[in-house]
């Protein structure tokens, strides 16, 4: 079985984001970019499936700007076998929308015929939480979202999902789309030998046009604003005073 893992290049989670002067989004020029943390978990899960003998090949895919090649190399260094880069934008500030990404991924699925697609539940930049679901809809495949556990059992899979206040386990028919949550696994570090090998692994370059997908945005970003600064706190002298203040604020 082939496993396809889409990975997105996003602003590094340690970077303090800054809104661009024109409010069109956050500044992405000259800031550290990394693989979306949820996608790292997806790559890790795919590699574990391969190590467990349940998958034969792990293919990482990224849709976006040319620089996403670095993100794919990271996936290769972690242990993916090969990579496909689909160039869909020139400007690092252009974010390809979930539907366009899902259509391109559907094209790749058609060409590669994987038995499973594992993606992050969302990208930490725009928090859309849509691509995996859209892909499932386009392909007519089953989907297991927010996975914190995944067990492949022949032509079906058990997906444990994190739901409000507990866990839910569902059975999905294969082939399937699984979107992963934070607690599924702890992604490995790229080992030095794998880092050195990554360069020699195949990385195929494609364009959105190769899949006949129009990536023109359908959404318009009206404005982007910094979160409101937190109001200064106060230090209370005693528990009584604390209770008093909370009552004043209507919190108790």
């Amino acid at each position, binding site marked *: 079985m082939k496993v396809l893992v889409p990975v997105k290049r996003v602003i590094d989670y340690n970077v303090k984001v800054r809104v661009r002067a024109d409010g069109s989004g956050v500044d992405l020029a000259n800031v550290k970019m990394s693989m979306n943390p949820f996608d790292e978990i997806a790559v890790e899960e795919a590699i574990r499936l391969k190590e467990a003998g349940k998958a034969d090949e792990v293919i990482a895919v990224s849709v976006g700007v040319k620089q996403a090649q670095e993100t794919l190399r*990271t996936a290769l260094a972690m242990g993916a076998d090969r990579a496909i880069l689909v160039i869909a934008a020139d400007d690092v500030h252009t974010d390809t929308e979930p539907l366009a990404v899902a259509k391109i991924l559907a094209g790749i699925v058609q060409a590669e015929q994987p038995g499973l697609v594992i993606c992050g539940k969302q990208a930490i930049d725009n928090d859309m939480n849509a691509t995996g679901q859209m892909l499932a809809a386009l392909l007519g495949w089953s989907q297991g979202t927010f996975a914190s556990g995944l067990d492949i059992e022949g032509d079906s899979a058990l997906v444990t999902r994190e739901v409000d206040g507990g866990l839910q386990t569902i059975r999905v028919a294969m082939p399937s789309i699984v979107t992963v949550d934070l607690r599924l696994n702890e992604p490995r570090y*790229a*080992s030095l*030998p794998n*880092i050195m090998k*990554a*360069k020699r692994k195949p990385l195929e370059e494609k364009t959105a046009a190769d899949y006949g997908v129009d990536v023109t945005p359908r959404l318009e970003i009206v404005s982007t604003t910094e979160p409101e600064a937190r109001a200064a706190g106060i230090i209370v002298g005693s528990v009584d005073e604390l209770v008093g203040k909370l009552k004043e604020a209507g919190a108790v």
Partner: protein
Amino acid sequence: MRFGLTEEQEMIVTTVRRFVETEIYPHEEQVERTGEVPAEIAGAIRAKTLELGFYACNFPESVGGAGLGHVDFALVERELGRGSMALTHFFGRPQNILMACRDDQTERYLLPAVRGEKMDALAMTEPEAGSDVRAMKCSAVRDGGDWVLNGVKHFISGADHADFFIVFVATGEDQTPRGPKKRITTFLVDRGTPGFAVRDGYRSVSHRGYRNMILEFDECRLPDGQVLGEVDGGFAVMNEWLYATRITVAAMSVGRARRCFDHALGYAAERKQFGQKIGKFQGVSFQLADMITEIDAADLLTLMAAWRLDQGLPANREIAGAKLYATEMLARVTDATLQIHGGMGLMSDLPIERFWRDARVERIWDGTSEIQRHIISRELLRPLGA
């Protein structure tokens, strides 16, 4: 001229940085407090480094290392420099000089060192021979087919964890026009060899938990097979391998300075006095500007010196320059960071006072700043006959 890193180098940097942040930072406070690295933590760091293939990454692939070039390795050291040296010691980088191992030395020392089974320490310095290495008194004389060692070494880092020692001793003297000159030979000495003792050293203000020890040789008998390299060839061995280790001091200084700088920048952007962020005061902001400029300069000097080694170009002056500038830069950056933090900077609740203390030794070991200046100026003046 290309200043960018390759994709592999970017990934090496990311991986080592993340390793230091997740496997080293969390234990730093404990090491500072106790002055010790618990065996379980040391073992865990070593095991993870081995698993990642980074252990002994400075060694060629032919002996089981990762075959990193000098630039690659400088990048590894730079990221490791962010973390406590007592802990990163177990992200093993055995002395490159072990590549001089011959015959059964390879099986007994080189390979176990690369595999993380044995740790080494290197001993040159003596109470009366620091910068002036050739003044060493520690000596070995022939007795039958053996060598008999006598003397004392001090300030020997990592000797508490070492299984064997690379020891430089005098094996004779040549008369030269500039006076007598000691001949030096390098020996491999196992811990536990009769006549050899490792004693507690001094308590250093820098790098708590990264201990230095005293080695005593009292009629310590070693067979010929313990000589590393040629008899009387110690200086050649030293020059061939040790120059490059100075780059590691420069690289670590750059990494530590960057970590320290992030604290300075963050504090300047948060701390308010006189109704505004202290970073708004030019007295503070201009310090930040100078700090980052100096850090970048030191980074470039270091990588350039490493690049020269990779290219096979002469690099002694450049290495000395990088070591000199990076370590002095680190002193200024840690001091300014502490100043920007005011009184809080002195408190061990923050890591700033530690960075400041740790910085001090970098200008002393692996050749003092004065010795680096001596190397640089000698390279310039000697061709002119001065």
